[in-house]
């Protein structure tokens, strides 16, 4: 029990949220905001792996999100509902209850494969040039989707709401909230383990000095593959979850604008700080909601905040430190699961 305190704490927190949601004690709006917070945590912490820990500048995260969103949505609609293009359900609609996480993961895998579009070029180029490639990948994905009429093209794709309804018909719990909580926790947990292992720190060595990393025994290509696939896979996961909240997606959601939003969260939180990314995702989502009444002016205020941030605290909220570095007492709760493997020598 002691070893996994943080995990238990998160499980208790998640159960509390689910209970509160199940008993209609939270407004639908508050639930929605909570769900967006989860998704933003996945997005920002996974992008931090590339932009923070590995020191590349990826600005196409929304592209991978789109791949995950579309693949998992199409799978679910095809498998569990009747659709004018895909025909009657292939499997019994109620089986969505346990197959849903698998279709989400399938979306994540597809996004991870799309990540190869950036990973392979990254063997030869980096910095600004790679940034442009990520931008291009974002456009390629968006334009491809726009041009496939079978999945709605620019009009978008829907029908995922029905999948969730099928699941709720089997067992009335807030399914989508449940899976957002599970996958948000999982993402942060996996990333935490990755970046605190000697294996994962290989990507920090690449950031610090790629030539020295390669010459001192780090297979930099393999590490880049791992990092890009992990990061884009997680973005795909976030996309899949996102698609099932409203039950409707369109390519216009996954533009450079969305990628920029994620980047803002990473820089706000601090590059190379996982807890920074989590904090800033929470903060950013809330700020976005608070500023919602401003409508379009919101997109003047937010960039302005970003400029101020870059002027006064360019390293973000946390810099490259973790919460446990700032408040060592937190270690009791969250570093316990590091076991004796990662304590200071």
């Amino acid at each position, binding site marked *: 029990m002691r070893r996994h305190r943080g995990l238990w704490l998160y499980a208790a927190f998640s159960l509390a949220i689910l209970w509160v949601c199940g008993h209609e004690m939270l407004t639908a709006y508050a639930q929605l905001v909570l769900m967006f917070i989860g998704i933003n945590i996945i997005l920002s912490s996974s992008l931090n792996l590339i932009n923070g820990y590995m020191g590349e500048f990826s600005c196409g995260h929304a592209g991978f999100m789109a791949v995950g969103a579309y693949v998992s949505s199409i799978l679910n609609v095809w498998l569990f509902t009747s659709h004018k293009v895909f025909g009657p359900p292939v499997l019994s609609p109620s089986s969505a209850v346990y197959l849903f996480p698998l279709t989400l993961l399938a979306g994540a895998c597809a996004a991870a494969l799309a990540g190869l579009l950036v990973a392979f070029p990254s063997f030869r180029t980096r910095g600004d040039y790679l940034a442009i490639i990520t931008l291009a990948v974002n456009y390629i994905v968006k334009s491809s989707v726009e041009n496939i009429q079978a999945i709605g093209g620019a009009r978008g794709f829907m029908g995922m709401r029905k999948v969730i309804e099928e699941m709720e018909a089997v067992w009335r719990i807030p399914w989508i909230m449940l899976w957002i909580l599970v996958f948000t926790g999982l993402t942060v947990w*996996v990333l935490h*383990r990755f970046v605190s292992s*000697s294996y994962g720190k290989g990507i*920090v060595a690449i950031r*610090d000095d790629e030539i020295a990393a390669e*010459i*001192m025994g*780090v297979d930099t290509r393999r590490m880049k593959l791992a990092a890009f696939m992990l990061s884009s896979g997680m973005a795909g996961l976030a996309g899949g979850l996102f698609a099932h909240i409203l039950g409707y997606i369109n390519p216009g959601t996954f533009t450079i604008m969305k990628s920029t939003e994620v980047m803002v969260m990473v820089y706000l939180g601090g590059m190379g700080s996982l807890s920074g990314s989590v904090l800033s995702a929470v903060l950013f989502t809330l700020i976005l909601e608070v500023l919602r009444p401003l409508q379009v002016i919101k997109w003047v205020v937010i960039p302005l905040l970003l400029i101020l941030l870059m002027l006064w605290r360019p390293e973000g909220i946390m810099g490259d430190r973790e919460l446990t570095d700032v408040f060592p007492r937190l270690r009791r709760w969250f570093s316990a699961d590091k*076991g004796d*493997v990662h304590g200071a020598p």
Partner: protein
Amino acid sequence: MALLEIRRLTHFFGGLRAVADFNLRLEGGELLGLIGPNGAGKTTVFNLVCGFYKPTEGDIFFLDKDIAGLRPHAVTAMGIARTFQNIRLWNTLSVFDNLCIAQHFRLGYGLGDVVLRTGRFVTRERHVRRTAEELLEIMGLRHYAQERPGNLPYGMQRRLEIARALATQPKLLLLDEPAAGMNPGEIDQLVETIRWIRESFTLTIWLIEHHMRVVMSVCERVQVLDFGQTIADGPPEAIKQDPRVIQAYLGSEELSHA
């Protein structure tokens, strides 16, 4: 079987011939020096051996295997490690992590083990950390374990680079001007360290050095490079008297430091 055998190694940078027809047979346990004026091609030879450049021509055999064209991390995995003329440590990681990451190619676990924290991960990671701790201890860096390398005194950074190379458990250690920028006290210590490392790790050491005091006191054999060509090869005393070597160094004060 020679540890390292280089035959007719030639390398061009565009039209510039940086290394020309370089030959070497290095037996296990030797301590070989490589000297020459600035721009002679010494570092380029190291870069070719460690796989950073693919030679224009020639063969490099390490333990009878052709390593020319292998990627650097694979060469390191075979047992060749090096330090850099301009210190190249990972500066946002701790000294301790620098020593752990140098064991990356033989971690013996993968992403799945990291995520699931398998038994293999725990035992291997513990081993990696123990190796790093031992190196900190024997290289006198224990005190700096959690520091960032950039905060260390210059001499200590050079020591850390050597420690990091040792963390890969090499059979052949390449040192590129390990004494550069050191004060006389640090140089004496370095000479001690080099001797001691060779004894206790049973290593073969190949070093580039401008400080003749270091070369003369530790090397058993010295090769001299000038404009990419090998102009002399022999014991240090003979090298010092060789007219071609003196000629090559004419105008530079370096030999007089001896």
